[in-house]
């Protein structure tokens, strides 16, 4: 804390925060603009279905992911069985799989023309779809299953950590009082893990609500697809903004729920002391069942889709290995590189102000700036289009007023809009990683430097930056990867004719030709694996240090 810090620092912080919260403000103000025909029409016809679909999807995915994740988390945390050490990290792998790729692969496997139904028809000599019942993959249920398969690791991770941190003395107490493993799971582990599970379910539900590609591919209309269609088909920004506002309501209530659950969790985990986790030794049938369950989960959620992707890539290598693939990879790369540098710069500046400012109001900008991540990609895109379109028109009007020809859509019609959107969405990640790095720097280092005559800029340059290296690197990496993966915002905001890896792959998915874009899809999966390695590494470090 530097007493008498110049106000220009505070001003800078608020300026950055204002720019980042612009989309949120734009959506709210645009949603309050008097009604127009498109939204009224939507409201009368399809909106109730969209809302219902969104909520149903959130419910089913939350439930599905919970049911899949809890046994795996408990087995890995509390039992010793063959393969446990591998499953411990391998069950996080599905997070790297884009849900729409998994959805595509399973549709290919399971629909009428797919190998499974073909096999069944040959076995039972069925002739046509009328002869037998097979559940439709491309449905709300199918979408729920696909999303559960890729999102369950959120719950798995939180539940595993909680189960591992549960004090072993409680376990001992339960055992002494005659509880077997099964009873101690039901009466002890599970109830104590409730807050963590709630946090996990909230995260899964938020991701589900924000999903665009899977539901779009399965033709299940939800609020996200509605936002997309309203803008691209009806061209109504204000109706899209109104839908976005409904979406925000859903997302923010999930965030509220998550925060609430996290506070409960702190309460539940206060009493953990020294923890020597004792594992139940599983033998024979039980051990085989445990390994079997975890293997099956890993197989269906990650290995099978990934193997099929590899097979596509092998068979269609010539189509995949195209100049387009290189061009779009390069597009993804340079945008991700620019955005990660800007986002980390924002993160460092905001956290620096937060740390050194003596004014309590300066705690706010970094918080405001973190809201960007809460906006689903489609919603963010609308929130950005509203002010930037306005700005574009204003610039062109100004040119014409001065008697020149307008420069065209310089903001919304160029990659600027993509970079801007990604910066807003992913600054939160950079802020988070810089913040956790800052927490490890003792405040007395600042005081020492200040008393030895350092001014704020020198403090940042000579003391903080060298010590923030790890956080800065992590922030760059994570933002970079998220940029490579982000699809919905890119779909809505890309300039005409511009593609990056994600939109390129999605194009193939919607054209039923993923085979031709398999290489690009593999690149996205591999890039997605990097943060998992990083996450696992930091988790292991944490468990070592405690």
């Amino acid at each position, binding site marked *: *804390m*530097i*007493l*008498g810090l110049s106000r220009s620092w505070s001003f800078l912080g608020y300026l950055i925060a204002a720019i980042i919260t612009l989309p949120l403000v734009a959506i709210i103000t645009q949603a309050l603009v008097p009604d127009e025909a498109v939204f009224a029409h939507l409201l009368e016809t399809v909106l109730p279905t969209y809302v219902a679909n969104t909520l149903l999807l959130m419910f089913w995915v939350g439930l599905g992911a919970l049911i899949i994740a809890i046994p795996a988390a408990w087995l890995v945390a509390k039992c010793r069985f063959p393969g446990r050490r591998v499953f411990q990290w391998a069950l996080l792998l599905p997070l790297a799989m884009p849900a729409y790729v998994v959805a595509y692969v399973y549709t290919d496997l399971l629909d009428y023309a797919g190998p499974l139904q073909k096999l069944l028809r040959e076995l039972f000599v069925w002739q046509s779809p009328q002869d037998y019942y097979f559940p439709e993959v491309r449905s709300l249920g199918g979408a729920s299953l696909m999303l559960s398969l890729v999102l369950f690791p959120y719950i798995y991770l939180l539940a595993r950590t909680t189960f591992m941190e549960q004090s072993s003395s409680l376990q001992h107490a339960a055992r002494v009082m005659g509880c077997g493993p099964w009873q101690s799971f039901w009466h002890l582990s599970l109830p104590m893990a409730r807050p963590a599970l709630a946090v996990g379910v909230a995260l899964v539900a938020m991701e589900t609500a924000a999903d665009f590609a899977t539901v779009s591919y399965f033709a299940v209309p939800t609020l996200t697809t509605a936002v997309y269609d309203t803008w691209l088909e009806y061209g109504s920004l204000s109706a899209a903004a109104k839908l976005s506002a409904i979406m925000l309501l859903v997302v923010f209530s999930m965030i509220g729920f998550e925060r609430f659950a996290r506070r409960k969790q702190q309460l539940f985990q206060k009493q953990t002391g020294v923890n020597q986790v004792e594992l139940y030794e599983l033998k024979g049938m039980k051990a085989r069942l445990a390994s079997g369950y975890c293997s099956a989960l890993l197989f269906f959620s990650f290995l099978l889709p990934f193997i099929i992707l590899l097979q596509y890539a092998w068979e269609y290598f010539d189509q995949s290995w195209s100049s387009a693939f290189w061009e779009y990879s390069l597009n993804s790369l340079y945008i991700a590189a620019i955005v990660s540098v800007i986002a980390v710069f924002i993160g460092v500046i905001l956290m620096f102000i937060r740390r050194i400012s*003596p004014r309590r109001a300066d705690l706010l900008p970094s918080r405001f700036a973190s809201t960007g991540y809460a906006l689903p990609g489609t919603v963010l895109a609308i929130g950005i289009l509203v002010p930037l379109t306005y700005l574009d028109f204003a610039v062109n009007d100004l040119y014409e007023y001065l008697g020149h020809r307008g420069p065209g859509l310089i903001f919304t019609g160029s990659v600027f809009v993509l970079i801007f959107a990604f910066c807003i969405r992913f600054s939160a990640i950079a802020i988070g990683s810089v913040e956790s790095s800052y927490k490890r720097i*003792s405040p*007395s*280092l600042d*005081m*020492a*430097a*200040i*008393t*030895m*005559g*350092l*001014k704020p800029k020198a403090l940042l340059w000579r*003391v903080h930056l*060298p*010590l923030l290296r790890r956080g800065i690197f992590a922030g760059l990496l994570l933002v970079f990867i998220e940029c490579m993966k982000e699809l919905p915002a890119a779909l809505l905001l890309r300039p005409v004719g511009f593609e990056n890896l994600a939109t390129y792959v999605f194009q193939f998915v919607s054209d039923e030709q993923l085979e031709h874009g398999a290489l690009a899809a593999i690149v996205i999966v591999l890039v997605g694996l990097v943060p998992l390695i990083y996450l696992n590494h930091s988790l292991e470090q944490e468990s070592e240090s405690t």
Partner: protein
Amino acid sequence: MSTLSIKGVHSHYQGQQVLRGLDLTLAKGEIAALLGPSGCGKTTLLRAIAGLQPITEGEICINGQILSGPDRFEPSERRGIGMIFQDYALFPHLNVADNILFGVKDATKEQRKARLDEMLALVKLDGLSERFPHELSGGQQQRVSIARSLAYEPELLLLDEPFSNIDAKVRGEMMLEIRAILKQRNVSAVFVTHSKDEAFVFADKLALFKDGYIVQYGTAEELYTSPKDRYVADFLGSGNYIPASVTDAFSVETPLGKLVSTRALSQPVSYHGEILLRPQQLEITADEEGAGVIVERRFLGNVCHYQVQIAQQFYEVKSQFSQLAPGQKVDLHAQPHSLVVF
């Protein structure tokens, strides 16, 4: 001339008043200890002197120059103050040499080298200038932080509980060593601690804190032998409080008989109060006819601690004489000294 002078300082922290009217002056080369239980405001005062904590009233001056006052605030970086932190606050990304020279400005390369060598010699760390903080022991880190804060020749050195992280075995030695360094360079210092033993060893003067103000300020001896009230007396050591009434300018009547002070009492004749007797000021002698009986005995090595009961009153006694056993009849006498009456 006084290096530091603090007049009527008040300070608020998060809406709460943590300093309420402090006065303190420190002469050149003096070391003052801010002593008190945790949360009494001593660290806040230290930070206020360093310009890391705002004050709402009063003023803080160094060498007659106002640093914090009603309409003046000199930023920390221009105060020329050295500060040593509880966790030493060595920069982990810099080696010993760079840490020590961090605050040294406007010097040529040769001057910097000379200063570094001088400082390393001063804190006896010659040859370790290339090491990084994590490669040093706690005591070595402590010495680097001393060298670093002396390297730019501050007007005043502030120390925030600098010995609390040091192993008890080497702490005493460390304190004497650093005290010698400060005295050798005639540095004025303010030192925060909650341990009276540290304050006794390290400081010339003690300021005893209670709830944001200074109860008493003076040399250790002054505070110990003539405490202003029971809070001061109790903080600096245990004692027996015995009912007493003043009979003349030098003597009081107590259950132990008439006691004579070596110095005139400030209370008027026939004042009823309590007299403070430290456990080592009582002499114990075996006496089958004595009024007291030993209730408890604890052997502490260099002394023996007895609890003695006379009538309804219990007395704590420290004695070199360790042959007495519980149940033994004894007699107590107070040694002649300057009596403290409350």
